[in-house]
């Protein structure tokens, strides 16, 4: 799948991370956010939305370039810099659903890093059950007036444009009464709540968003009126695939650092990797990591061909996210007391990777989807 030009790109992006990201991660973790400037630098170097056609500021690259960026960020312990969310989860909504005018207005700035994106579905009272969203948008002349609250929104503080899932139908309209509305940074009545303190992804600005009589122009509706739920469903395949990509890359990175550690650390006069129990543990992990990789690569290939993979991607999101957490657990253990110290990257990976079975649809929600598709529920 990956060709030579992909490899060259990967190496270039690695060098970029070594220079612009990794040395600063610790500070950003302490600050709870990454600076805007790193987004600009990424954009200028062509690492944001590389898949966008050139007329919108991208380089018309295939999906594999997006995969490479997500993988390398994850391996570098920089999942908090949620460029993949911006490039491959939110920007595709604008590209697929936007009018020509909207696309010309926003997409070039997304590619340059001047405009950072977020998508706001989750509310304090509903996460898994998207059809229960309550944030309301009412039409008032040439405006939408939005009232409600969102929570756990990635890039929530930095975002210049948020795609907000709103109820435009009657309160009991369920999945049939939702629409997607773009809210820009300076929209009146749009405020940011707390940058939520959390167990991991400390440098990620996961935030609350508050809409209080927030007014946005009527033309900020994205896609069909009342079609929001279905638009979301159409795009979740790629979102979940990207989550699986991150989890897989993290698992690979953890395995590698742990094999390295376990071969170097000695106890009772030999490397701890050489105790049969530990060797078998590592073999089990390596096997699971390989299984994940084989499954994931097939899905990436099929996704490139535009196939409908909802069942398989849901399985992969659930299984790979859980697998990466199993790997994290064994890897911390193999590090002994050092694994419990932030000074060792494995400790942060353990905290960071725990969110993957939760966001982009929980493991249980993935199982609900698969169960329905298998005709079980």
């Amino acid at each position, binding site marked *: 799948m990956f060709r030579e030009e992909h490899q060259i790109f990967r190496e270039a992006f690695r060098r970029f991370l070594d220079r612009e990201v990794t040395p600063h991660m610790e500070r950003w973790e302490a600050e709870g956010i990454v600076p805007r400037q790193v987004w600009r630098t990424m954009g200028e170097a062509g690492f944001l939305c590389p898949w966008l056609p050139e007329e919108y500021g991208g380089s018309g690259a295939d999906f594999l370039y997006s995969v490479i960026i997500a993988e390398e960020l994850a391996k570098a312990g920089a999942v908090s810099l949620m460029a993949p969310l911006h490039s491959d989860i939110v920007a595709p909504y604008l590209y697929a659903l936007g009018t020509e005018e909207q696309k010309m207005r926003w997409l070039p700035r997304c590619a340059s890093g001047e405009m950072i994106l977020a998508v706001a579905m989750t509310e304090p009272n509903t996460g898994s059950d998207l059809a229960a969203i309550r944030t309301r948008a009412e039409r008032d002349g040439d405006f939408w007036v939005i009232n409600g609250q969102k929570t756990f929104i990635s890039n929530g503080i930095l975002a210049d444009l948020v795609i907000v899932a709103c109820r435009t139908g009657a309160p009991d309209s369920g999945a049939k009464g939702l629409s997607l509305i773009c809210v820009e940074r300076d929209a009146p009545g749009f405020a940011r709540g707390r940058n939520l303190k959390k167990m991991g992804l400390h440098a990620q600005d996961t935030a609350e968003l508050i809409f209080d009589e927030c007014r946005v122009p009527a033309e900020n509706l994205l896609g069909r009126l009342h079609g929001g739920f279905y638009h979301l469903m159409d795009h979740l395949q790629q979102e979940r695939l990207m989550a699986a990509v991150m989890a897989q890359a993290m698992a690979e990175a953890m395995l590698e650092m742990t094999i390295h550690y376990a071969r170097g650390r000695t106890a*009772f006069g030999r490397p701890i990797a050489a105790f049969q129990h530990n060797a078998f543990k590592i073999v089990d992990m390596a096997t699971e990591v390989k299984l994940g990789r084989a499954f994931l690569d097939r899905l990436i290939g099929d996704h490139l061909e535009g196939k409908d993979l909802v069942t398989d991607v849901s399985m992969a999101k659930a299984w790979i996210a859980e697998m990466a957490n199993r790997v994290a657990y064994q890897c911390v253990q193999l590090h002994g007391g050092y694994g419990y110290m932030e000074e060792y990257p494995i400790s942060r990976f*353990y*905290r960071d990777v725990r969110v993957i079975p939760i966001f982009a649809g929980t493991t249980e929600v993935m199982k609900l989807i698969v169960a329905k598709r298998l005709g079980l529920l």
Partner: protein
Amino acid sequence: MNFEFPEELKILKEEAYKFAVREFTPVSQECDREEKYPREVWKKACEYGFIGAWIPEEYGGAGAGFLANTIITEQFSRVDMGIGLIMASCFGAENIYLYGTEEQKKEYLPRIASGEIIFAGAYTEPNAGTDVAGIRTRAVRDGDHFVLNGQKMFITNGSICDYFVVFCITHADAPRHKRFSLLIVDAHSPGITRNKIQGKMGIRASDTAEISFEDVRVPVENIVGKEGNGFYQLMDFFNTTRTMVAGQGVGLAQGALDKAAQYVQEREVFGQPLAHFQGVQFQLAEMATRIELARQLTYKAAWQVDQGRIDPKLSAMAKYYAGETAVWVADKALQLHGGYGYIDEYDVQRFYRDAKILEIYEGTKEAEKLTIAKIVLKEYQKG
């Protein structure tokens, strides 16, 4: 056979839990965030007689035994295991109880119970953890003193304690397991440098430090037990204190279940409480079952210690299984909270971070499996 919970332990259990809820909760987030040792809470716990509950009455303690000690630890950990580690302010002094002289017991144990002093047990070194017989710290005899040199790593209470019990080499030329002794070292002696380790994943209210000893002079009468017998004494020590760590695991797991079982009844998804879904119910069932298993094992191991019949296999099983259970249960509890499980506002993420240490310290779970396997094989030895 009698599984009845004695009335006095029932009361103790309730009192300890109430104390923890009242005293820990207000400072819990602050201690976790700022890696702050809860000195006032520790003092108060001493006043209540919770600290060193195993210390016999003749030495100023409650004389309640190790099972009681485990139960207090369990209840503390149910609320906040990091703060609950104030129970370890006597850590190391169990050596004195098990092998110390009458003078040593009189000198140290009462002051622990009353909250005048804090102890630490310094065994691990940068290059020797599981393989504790691989340590290098040496104490060389010089007249009526030992001169101590070496480095210790990951020492609980290391930067706040008044005394260490140090595991060191005194007989360098003896066979591997007969080289060691345990020494009581005044933590304020010249030549000691202590560096608090910042940035732990969890139990951040507990103090952990790196210690270096440079020509530290220790009076010979500070030897605990027999010179050269330190390794065997240390094993007895671990087999005793593992019951406390097992109690931490049971308590943390119980606390995580407490939270999850409440949360799933309050949170509605798809128009009904989360608790209505079978997938959720069965998880709670599995969590509760494992906790009960861990608890029975732990209580029995602690009870054995109180009978004066330390059972190394049982202590190791309890510590290993309770630790693993705590991690497993905390993970499920976090998941049941969805996105809320991941943010600091909800305690369950702290339980998740705290839990993992239980499989690492006081002997990794692999160290415990080594012990168990050895004994199991011995039990089935031919002839």
